[in-house]
Every structure is written in structure tokens, then in C-alpha cells.
């Protein structure tokens, strides 16, 4: 798998390692020899215990942190799309002086691309995010979960080819969370972005993904990559099927064995 030569491979990670220096002069190893090929249009979920380096992995792909060793390559090489990469951060990171609508329009504003179409899309997103009545409110008038939804909408507005999502549903209640997952799948189905989706919920990871990357506790290595060969479009009812249960169990066992090994 790591040495896949797929022509439609959009991200290739080759033996990525990441060492963080600590204040006391030592180092923390966050990632150890992570290799992965991501195909175009693939939805990949990443699960792993807290602190195993999931955020670090996304940050390196995004170019916000520099790996200690290893390589990240994007392909196909002729792809010079401006919005190649977009990220939903673990915190909402909204700009407090911008209304919800204007926060959604952050990326179009930066690229001087605000027009009728972007406004219409922002309206659509507000509805999808369940925030249609909050377009003109300021972030400090919103709950944590609502702010996080705006953060998701802002990344969708950016419309990247590759969407990196770091626990985007972390602050949402179970019901909103399910609905947002299904909405995300709908959007993904429209233009088949490549999605890397970090989550702590195994059922959520399985419900959304083509493949689930399971990581070990620190230092983060790939325990396994689990194929999710369930038919699409996925529905919430899928969760109750035996096939689904099997995959969830398999991932849970992988995580458990890795935990007890440490």
C-alpha cells in the first residue's frame, strides 16, 4: 500500500516522522514512519487515541508544520488548483469581528471572489449548517457547537480539492453530529473531494469512510488501514447491519491491542 503507484493518487506520504522539541530539551515523537497513499476522491477517516499525532499529520499535509523526516507528495503534478487544500481546525477559530455570514465568506474575501454565486452558496450553507437565523450574528453569540459548524462551512466555502478535517464534529451533540455527517457525505458525493477526516468516534469513522486509518498511541504509527466495503449512499440505518458491526469491532480490537501493548 505505501508504495502504490496509482496514477490517481493525490497525496502520498512516505515514512513521515515528526519529533517535537520539548521545553526541557528532549523530544517527543509524534509520528513514526507513517506511509499512506490517498486516491483522488477518497474519503479517509483517521482514528487513534488522543495525543497519537492525528492533528500533527494533518498539519504536515497542510504545510503548517514541517516533518522531521519523510516526504509528502501531491499528485497528479499538473494540478495547480488554487484551493488545493483546505482545513477544518480542531477549534473553530472564527474572527470575532465578522458576522457568521462574513466568517463563511472569509476565503472568497481573501481571493476577491465575492459575487452573487458565493452569496447564494453561503445562504445554502447556512441552511445546511442549521444556522439560517444566525447569519448576521457574531461568533460570541453562538454556542461552541454552532461556532464549530461555522468553521466547517468556512472550509466548504473555500471549496478545496482536498479537505482536511480535524475532529470537526467534536463539540456537537450526537444527533446534530449524525446529521452533519450525512450532510457532509451529500456534499462529498456532489464533487468527490478527497477528504481526510479525524474523529474519535469509530462508528462515525466507518459510516463516512472508504478506508479507516487506525493509529497507535504515541509515537503515532499506522496500526492498520481498514477497508470499508459498504455500499453508498450510506444511511444512518447502516449502523445496525452486521457488516458494519464487524468493521467497528475490528477497529476497536486494533485500538485495544495497541493500547494494551503500551
Amino acid at each position, binding site marked *: 500500500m505505501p508504495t502504490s503507484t496509482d496514477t490517481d493518487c493525490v497525496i502520498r506520504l512516505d515514512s513521515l516522522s515528526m519529533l517535537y522539541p520539548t521545553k526541557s530539551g528532549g523530544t517527543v515523537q509524534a509520528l513514526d514512519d507513517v506511509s499512506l497513499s490517498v486516491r483522488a476522491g477518497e474519503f479517509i477517516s483517521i482514528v487513534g487515541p488522543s495525543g497519537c499525532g492525528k492533528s500533527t499529520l494533518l498539519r504536515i499535509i497542510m504545510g*503548517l508544520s514541517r516533518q522531521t523526516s519523510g516526504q509528502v507528495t501531491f499528485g497528479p503534478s499538473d494540478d495547480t488548483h488554487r484551493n488545493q487544500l483546505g482545513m477544518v481546525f480542531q477549534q473553530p*477559530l472564527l474572527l470575532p469581528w465578522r458576522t457568521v455570514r462574513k466568517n463563511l465568506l*472569509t476565503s472568497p474575501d481573501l481571493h476577491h471572489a465575492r459575487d452573487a454565486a458565493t452569496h447564494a452558496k453561503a445562504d445554502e450553507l447556512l441552511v445546511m449548517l442549521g444556522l439560517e437565523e444566525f447569519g448576521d450574528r457574531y461568533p460570541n453569540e453562538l454556542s461552541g457547537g454552532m461556532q464549530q459548524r461555522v468553521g466547517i462551512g468556512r472550509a466548504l466555502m473555500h471549496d478545496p480539492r482536498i479537505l482536511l478535517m480535524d475532529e470537526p464534529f467534536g463539540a456537537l451533540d450526537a444527533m446534530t453530529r449524525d446529521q452533519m455527517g450525512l450532510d457532509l457525505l451529500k456534499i462529498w458525493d456532489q464533487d468527490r473531494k478527497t477528504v481526510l477526516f479525524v474523529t474519535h468516534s469509530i462508528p462515525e469513522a466507518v459510516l463516512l469512510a472508504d478506508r479507516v486509518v487506525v493509529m497507535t498511541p504515541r509515537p503515532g504509527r499506522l496500526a492498520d488501514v481498514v477497508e470499508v466495503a459498504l455500499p453508498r449512499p450510506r444511511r444512518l440505518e447502516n449502523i445496525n447491519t452486521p457488516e458494519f458491526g464487524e468493521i467497528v469491532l475490528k477497529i476497536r480490537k486494533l485500538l485495544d491491542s495497541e493500547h494494551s501493548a503500551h
Partner: protein
Amino acid sequence: MSTQTLEAPANSDTLVRGRRRRVPEITYSVLVFIGLLVVWQVVVTMFDISNILVPAPTAVAGSLVDGFQDGSLLTHSVVTLKEILVGFGIAVGSALVAAVLITQFRAVERVLFPLLILTQTIPKVAMAPLLIVWFGIGISSKVLTVALIAFFPLLINAILGFRSAAYEQVEMLRSFGASRMQVMRHLQIPSALPHIFAGLEVAVILSVTGAVVAEFVGSSEGLGYLIQASNFTLDVARTFAVIVVLSAIGIALHAAVVQLGKWLVFWTATPTDTAGEV
């Protein structure tokens, strides 16, 4: 039964507190102030204190009215106000430019910052006599004294402000393809505003002090000059009148800055703040 007895005092307590809040707190301040004026007036008349030591409030009021009627208070106020506004403006402009340069360019920071820390320890009013020697007895020496005094608190706060944006926010904007200028405009400038206004509030009051001190050192017009002139003629009531005018100028300028700040930095008014006022 027991719950009722528990509830009753709690209820009446909130009622009392609610009723008390109907009267704006400023009412009490005004009443106390008037009370002090009355005591002052009574003490001065009862003990027949000399007008050249402590004039009665009525004498100060009389002097105020006279001063505005013969035009002297107004013309001198205009001079001082001009010194304050021009000096303050220069300080604001140069402090903001310096803060941007220092926070945007490491080299500038390395060279300038230690020097700024050093010069910050100099008592700026001590420079006023020098500025008079260099720039003469006219308005420019006063303007420069004001600018010098107002500059440092503004600069320090502006530097803090431009650095206050969370690193994650910068990364967020960069991830959407923002240029350095765009990060500045969309993030660093708005995040700096609350700090800049904190600096402005301090600086505007210091500006009034700066203008008066510079006029003390050497001048032929302005409210500081008027204080010295009336002290010389033992017209203490006039001195008090000028102090009243100076305070009024300070309060008005400060209020203007606060109001502008509230208007520009609207997002820091959190729901809890407003709840506290209800």
C-alpha cells in the same frame, strides 16, 4: 413550608437590589460632589479664609464666567487644545507606524526595541525645557512635548496589540491562501484595536498634562501660561477656574476616545458585560 421561608428572603433581596439599580449610580456621585462643594463654601465663609489661599466655589464660578465673557479663557483654551490635538495626533501616527514596523520586521525590532525600552525610562516631562530651547517658546515645542509624552504608552500597547492575534488564527488565514498583508488587514489590525484603545485612553490624558507642563516651562499663551500668570497676580480663583477648564478638556477628550473605542471594538462587549449593567 421550609422552602417557603427560604424563598421569601431571597425574593425580597432581589427585589431590593432591583429597585436600587433603578437609580443610576452617577446620581450618587453627583450628590456627593455637590455636597463637597457646599462644605467647601461653608468652611471658606465661616472661617473667613483669604481669597488668595482658597477661593470659595462661588468665587471660582464667578472667575469662570468672567474669563469666558472677556474671551481670555476661550482664546487660551483654543491654544492649549490645539497643542494637545496636534501633539496627540503626531504621537498616534508615529506610534502606530513604529509598532507596525517593529512587529512586522525582525531587524527593526532587534535594533529599535532595546532603545525604546531604554528611552521609556526617561521621565519625558524632564525633556520639556530642552524642547523649548531647541524649538522656541511657540507652539511647536509644546506640540513636541505632548507627542513625546503620549508616544510611549501608545507604542507599547500597539506592539502588544499587533502581537495579540493567536498563532492558530494566523495559520487559519494562511491556510486559506491569505498573503502577509491580508493577515495584517484581516487579523492583526482588528486584534490590535482593543489594545490600541487602551493606550489611547492613557495617552490622551497624558497629552493634557504634557501641554500644561510645556507651557509652564516657557510660553506666552495657553492655559498653562494662564495658571502661571494668575498665580503671579495672586488671582487664585482664576487658577482654579483654569484647572476646571483643563479637567473639562481632559474629560471630554477621554470620553471621545472611549466612545470611539466602543464603536470600533464592538465585538469585545460580551453578553456577560452587558448583563452586568442590567
